[in-house]
Every structure is written in C-alpha cells, then in structure tokens.
C-alpha cells in the first residue's frame, strides 16, 4: 500500500508548550482517514504543518515523498477551520481564482453545486450566511480533483441537515484513488465513512488502526473506543 502522507517524529513547540510531541503517522492512498482527538490535541497544528502554514520544530513531514512546498500544495486540497476565503470577492471571482491557480479544479462541478444551493454568481462572499459560506468553502475544496483532501473540522458546529450535506458532498466528489484526511472531535457523525482512524492526544499519536479492526476485534464503535481511550 502506497503512502500519501508520512510524518516522522514531528514535534512542534510554541514557546515552551508542546503542540505536537514526537508524532508519527501515515496516511495511505485511497483511504478516508479520521484524525480524531479532543479539542487542543494538536489536530489543527498537524494539518497546518502538512499544508506548509507552520514549520515543525523537529521531525519530518513528507507528502508523496516531498516536503511541503509548491508541488505538494498543488496536490492537496485544504479546508481550514477558519473563514479563509477572500471575503471581499464575489462568488464568481473566488471561483475564477481557484480555476486560475489549481489545474485540477472542476469549474462546472463547482457551479453545479452552487446553483443547487441557490448561491448566485454575483453575490459578495461577505453577504452569504455563515452556513452558505461553509458550504461554499467545502464546494470549492471538493471541486478539485486532488491527490489528498485535508478537511479540518468540516462538521463542527453545524446542524444535522448541513452535516449530511457536507458528508454527502465529500463522498460524492472525492476521487476514490485519492485520500481524505478529516479531523474532528465529533466521531459518531463521521465514523461510518472512515477507513482508518488516528487518535491523537496531547500531541501524541495514541492509536492508528483501521475501523474494521476496531469493530471486528473490540466489537465497539469508533466512538465508544474513543470515549474509552480519552476517558482518563
């Protein structure tokens, strides 16, 4: 099985605080992987390092064998956990920006999904509702035909209907040969779409396993196991 992501002994310190502490993990090609852990476990830090927005204090991160850089950025489609789109743009402008910079961007697909939501091309991003802004970001990210999708807390703080929409959009649009890394602390909502899980706590990887192993060996749902592991 080939790997799309390999992190080896990654440590990230902010001052004297460890956000990541000797974390090693891998993401296999063609898998949907859950990066699971409570708030403050280091999920976002890990994801920002994958995307080159932070540099590790120690250790190495390789994406398809390369350090984060221009080439890895054109392979990864990233959904941050903040409103990151240029808010002063119109829908049309931001779509054209994605089309201009990402060769793998499928413009028609994006507009098809936006039309279904009733989001107008000429609308300014800052006038969209919070829910539509989140959906818009997800649509842009999933409209890329990327090798790796990295989604940081895509379902945090959304209502059940939006959650179903988000999960459906991910399943419908990702390319089965590529991988998806989803970070969340809301496991029961998302565990049925996962192949593999990585549990992290206080910046360390405490478990990396396939979901079938958890269900087959422990006879538990991922959520149950998560609650057990993080009970202390």
């Amino acid at each position: 099985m080939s790997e799309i992501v390999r992190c080896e002994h990654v440590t990230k310190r902010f001052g004297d605080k460890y956000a990541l502490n000797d974390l090693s993990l891998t993401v296999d090609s063609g898998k949907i992987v859950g990066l699971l852990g409570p708030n403050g476990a280091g999920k976002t830090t890990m994801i920002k390092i994958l995307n080159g927005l932070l540099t590790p204090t120690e250790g190495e991160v390789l994406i398809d064998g390369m350090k984060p850089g221009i080439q890895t950025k054109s392979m990864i489609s990233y959904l941050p956990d903040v409103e990151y789109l240029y808010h002063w743009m119109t829908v049309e402008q931001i779509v054209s920006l994605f089309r201009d910079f990402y060769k793998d961007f499928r413009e028609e697909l994006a507009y098809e999904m936006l039309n279904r939501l009733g989001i107008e091309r000429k609308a300014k991003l800052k006038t969209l509702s919070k829910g539509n802004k989140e959906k818009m970001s997800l649509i842009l990210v999933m409209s890329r035909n990327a090798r790796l999708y990295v989604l940081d807390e895509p379902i945090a703080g959304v209502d059940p209907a939006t959650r179903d929409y988000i999960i459906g959009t991910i399943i419908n649009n990702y390319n089965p040969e590529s991988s998806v890394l989803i970070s969340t602390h809301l496991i029961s909502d998302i565990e049925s779409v996962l192949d593999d899980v990585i549990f992290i706590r206080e910046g360390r990887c405490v478990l990396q396993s396939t979901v079938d192993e958890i269900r087959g060996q422990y006879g538990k749902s991922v959520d149950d196991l998560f609650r057990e592991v993080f009970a202390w």
Partner: protein
Amino acid sequence: MVRKLIKYDFVSFLRLLLPVQLIVIGIAGVNRIVQIFEKGGGPAYSIVFVSSIVLLSVACVVALVMCFVIGIVRFYQGLYSKEGYLSHTLPVTAAQHLWSKLIVTMIFEIGTVFTIFLAVNVATIGEVGAELYKALGYLLGQAFSYLHGHLILFIVEGVVMLLVATASSFLRIYFCISIGQLVNRKKILLAFGIYFGIYMLGQIFATILIILGMVLANNEPWMHLAESIGNWVVAHPVASLHTGLISGTLITAVFGLVYFLVSRAIMTRRLNLS
C-alpha cells in the same frame, strides 16, 4: 503565476483606492468651479476659495497616505491573516507573492501621483494652467541651456531613484512584518519594534559615519583623499551629481534586495500562521 496574482491583488487595491482617487479629482473639479465666481465674489468668495484649496491639499495628502497604508495592510492581510490560509496554499512561490504585492503597490503609488497631477490640472484649467505650464517650460528651458542632455539624464535618474526608494521602503516593511510573524503573540508589536530598530540603527550608523568622516578628513593620510574628493566635486559638479544619484540608488536597491530575500526565506521556511 505572478500575472495571475497581480490580477487579484490589483482588484483588491482598486476596490479600496479608486474611491479616494475619484474624490480627489472631484474636489479639484469643485475648486475649479468655485473660481468661476472670482469676479465680484468679495470676502465670501475668498473664504470659499481658500477652504476649497485647503480641502484639495488635504485630499491629496490623504490619497498618498491611504495608498501607503493600503499597501501595508493588504500585504499583512493577504499573507499573514486568515487570508494567508488561502494565499499560502496556492501553488505559488513566496517570491511570486512578494513581487505581486510590490508591483501592485508601486502601480498604485504611481497612480496616486498621477491622480494628484491630474487634480492640479483640473483645478487650474484655463488661464492659471496656461501660466503654470509656461513657467514650467521656462524653467526647464533654462535648466536645459545649462545642462543640455544631462537634464534628461538627471530627470531619469531622479525618477528611478524615487521608484527604487519607494519599493525599498515597502520591502523594508514587508521584512518587518515577516519577522514579526515569527513570534506567537504580539506579532504586530514586534514588526513595529523591528521597524524602529532599523531606523535607529540607520541613524546611529549615519552619525558614526559623519563623525568618522570628519575625524579622518582632518588627519593624515586621509586628509589628502578628502581634499582631492572635494576638489573633484567642485571641478565636476555634473559628474558628481550623477555619481551621487546612481550610487544612492544602488545602495537603496541593495537594501531592498536584502529585505526581499529575507522575507522570502521566512515565508518559505519559517511560516508561522496563527
């Protein structure tokens, strides 16, 4: 890729700066209309006229300041605020980001100067304008008769120096902001600190240089050298002015280059987006 970046950066600047430029031209127009009532206007006219002149001057200064501020703010917002999550995950190099921001900033700096020039023209349409151009023409003519071709060279050198100095000062600010983002808190405070640190260093260095120069110039064996330089400047004022302009431009450019390279290195290797 730089072209595409410039396209989007340009729109982001234009959105903020176009209104300012239009207002400046508008005020100039108002000023010109006020002048129509000069004859038989009395003291009321003077008050209105003077205040519209003051307003125009203030508007010009505001336009320049706005352009400067927006140049800094767009750099910070686009690369080191939440927008940075998108900017830095585009498949674009740090150098391309820097070039795009710098080029667009320079375009708008030049644009603002042009707007002010246009505003002055609008405010002086008619006799006053004709007088102004006549005076300018006379001055240039005089200068040309002394300097000949050198006048054109001086103008070109002066403009290049201004452009390089402006670009370099923006690069210095980019450098300060980039250093500032290395820490996890109070990033902007550090940026300001670095800026004033550089300023202070420059002052101290200049002072030392002057004192050193004065001391050396009065002592052997440097006295001879200082004297011959002085003689050369007096004997060849045109050549020495050329030398001054060009070497000043080069030194400024070298500083700009250093700021550029360090900023690029930070953005590529030490990004710390919070």
